[in-house]
């Protein structure tokens, strides 16, 4: 059990825990500081929480320590309004005894390799918020009234809890003006304009990608598939737990959705390796890049699915059909991404 092993030297980032760092991976033998909580993840994927202290790990276990906060983060809900933001204060919630696995522990397990900094969390929260606003899952229109603000706050709380396992303690609209200067941003765009357009008439109809261009790394593919493998199961169980409105066709639609997500989960967990077309045949880099792009498409669908799940948890019965339609769209995108990841070469398109 390693009880009598020597203590490891303290991690250099440990003093920042609770300020700029939210969670940190711990090695066996290191000591989690007072005031933090330990999360242990077994080889079978189960997580459990422990009080802070010396970390002892069983075979195949990993550990993180986190500080519950609160953390204050400034989010930008719209890229087009850079001087007007939301200031959130979030806390990692205490363990909820009613659920099998805390959502925050699931996030640590599937998304955090070494550490989770405040800036990383801010970027993740901001992109979740921007995507929910663009999809119409949340609404924050100009001249928001008090009622609309309450609806937005309820939706935001649910989204942040369902996607990240965090509790929104406080959220106020805030003027970012002296720091964020839209005029300076526009001046920067004027100095460095975009590349001049290339005439389409002269270039060949299908532009040939440059052979050596590498946009994505293989680690993005691996972490994306890891997220799909770990998170699709809990997402399905979240959907299963929803209380459906009585009557109508919602039951059939819900069952069909669960079936498709189950198949997608099976598809993701049996995905072939990235770099090989056949046992002794490496796949060209160009096709690997296309495959990674497909993985990222599936991961984007997964993020949207968490947002729709959060919306469904608050939905009135009149909104269910529209939400199930949205879930169907996300499911189709997920299947498209997974199918593209599985293909070795892009399919030949039918003649025009």
């Amino acid at each position, binding site marked *: 059990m390693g009880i009598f092993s020597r203590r490891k030297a303290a991690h250099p980032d440990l003093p920042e825990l609770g300020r700029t760092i939210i969670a940190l991976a711990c090695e066996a033998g290191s000591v989690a500081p007072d005031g933090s909580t330990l999360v242990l993840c077994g080889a079978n994927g189960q997580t459990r929480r422990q009080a802070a202290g010396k970390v002892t790990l069983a075979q195949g276990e990993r550990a993180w320590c986190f500080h519950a906060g609160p953390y204050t983060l400034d989010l930008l809900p719209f890229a087009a*309004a850079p001087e007007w933001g939301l200031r959130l204060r979030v806390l990692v919630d205490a363990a909820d005894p009613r659920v099998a696995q805390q959502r925050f522990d699931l996030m640590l397990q599937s998304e955090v390799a070494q550490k989770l900094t405040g800036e990383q969390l801010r970027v993740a929260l901001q992109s979740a918020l921007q995507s929910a606003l663009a999809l119409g899952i949340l609404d924050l229109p100009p001249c928001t009234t008090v009622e609309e603000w309450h609806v937005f706050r309820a939706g935001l709380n649910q989204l942040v809890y369902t996607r990240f396992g965090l509790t929104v303690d406080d959220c106020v609209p805030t003027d970012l003006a002296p720091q964020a200067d839209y005029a300076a941003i526009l*001046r920067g765009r004027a100095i460095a304009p975009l590349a001049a357009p290339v*005439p389409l008439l002269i270039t060949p109809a299908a532009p040939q990608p440059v052979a050596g261009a590498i946009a994505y790394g293989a680690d993005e593919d691996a972490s994306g598939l890891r997220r799909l493998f770990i998170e699709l199961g809990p997402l399905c169980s979240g959907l299963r737990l929803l209380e459906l409105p009585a009557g109508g066709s919602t039951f059939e639609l819900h069952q069909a959705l669960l079936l498709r997500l189950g198949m997608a989960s099976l598809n993701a967990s049996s995905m072939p390796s990235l770099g090989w077309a056949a046992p002794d045949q490496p796949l060209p880099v160009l096709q690997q890049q296309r495959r990674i792009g497909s993985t990222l498409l599936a991961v984007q669908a997964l993020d949207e699915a968490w947002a729709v799940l959060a919306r469904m948890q608050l939905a009135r019965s009149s909104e269910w059909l529209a939400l199930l339609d949205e879930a169907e769209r996300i499911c189709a995108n997920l299947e498209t991404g997974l199918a593209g990841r599985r293909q070795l070469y892009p399919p030949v398109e039918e003649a025009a």
Partner: protein
Amino acid sequence: MNQTTIPATAVCRSVLADGRVLTITASRRPRANRADVKCSVAAAPALAQRMQQAVRMARLTEPVLDTRDQVVLSMDLAPAALERDWELAAILADRMVRGVYAPADPAAVFAFGSSDVWHLGRLRLAEVPHHGGMQAQGQHMAAAVCKVAASGQADAGDRYSRALALLGGDGVLVYAEGAAMPPRAPDGRCFAISHLGALQGHADQADCVASVRSWFPLYSGGLHDSLAWVEVSVYPLDPADAAGSEEDSISAPQLEPSRLQALRQTLAAARHFDGYGLGRWRTLVRFGQPDFQGGSYELALVMADRMARGREFPPRGRLIASGQSSAWHAGRVETVEGQQAKLELIIRQAGAGDRVLLPADWSATLPSGYQAQLRQRGASLACIGRIGMI
């Protein structure tokens, strides 16, 4: 977007240089592992390929991805090889059939525009190169393009007037802002865009000038009621000029001096209400139809200005507002006349994602079910007593 409420086919038209009316039909069907866009033009496979390329590039600028459906696009005529103004019509047809663009009258949309950077959403053509290794080909292309332009020049005005004659009252004619030959007599149905987001009045996210449009109901006794737009474009002011008065930095070339003065006072007062508004921007205001009376456009103007300066949350669709004030420096919104006619016009024109802002005094006298009816169409309504958050 609920798929059942959108019809499975959409039509967008354009007029070719020789005066023929080109109809681009888009239809939607379940994808079933087929290509996302399929284009067909009788006896012109190269043209179909170009149409598919333009549509796919333009799709990259949309916020929502939907891989459920396949869209099939077809043309009833084959335009000449170097003619390209149908591209915008193809893109709008593709957007209409999926509900991404929802004009008030989907059967009456004309579009003229082409671009080499559809993936950025901009309507901008590349300069034809005249030098280097491509010289011979470049000159050949330039000569060909000039010939097309020259042949188009003779009847370019004709093209637009022909389209306007075929349009109904609620129809819309969309054309490129920098077109070589704009319509001679643009009326309220003509709509110039420089990028695809401008259809909803949004600013181009990559441009150094932020220009935002918002709409206001223009009431003229029933027959010619329409939603008119006002556009505010801002560019950072040089620090050297910042010392001048705020009103001198605002210009509106379409207006005569007395109305220009009123507009300048409105904007300057509204910026005074906003903490960081003064002394930072050079401003240009344009109207779709400059000849109107009354001050009910002021709320739309002020909101467009706030959004252009990046200090207001933008709506997903358009912003439609009616309201004026005697105290913009306090951010107050006061009532305007013509409630009945304006409400009817708004309910007819509002679409998914639109935001309607009305004076607070109207909230008591709204027809019953008006707000629910708007919400049914995907728009949201607020009756506000002052601008800004809550």
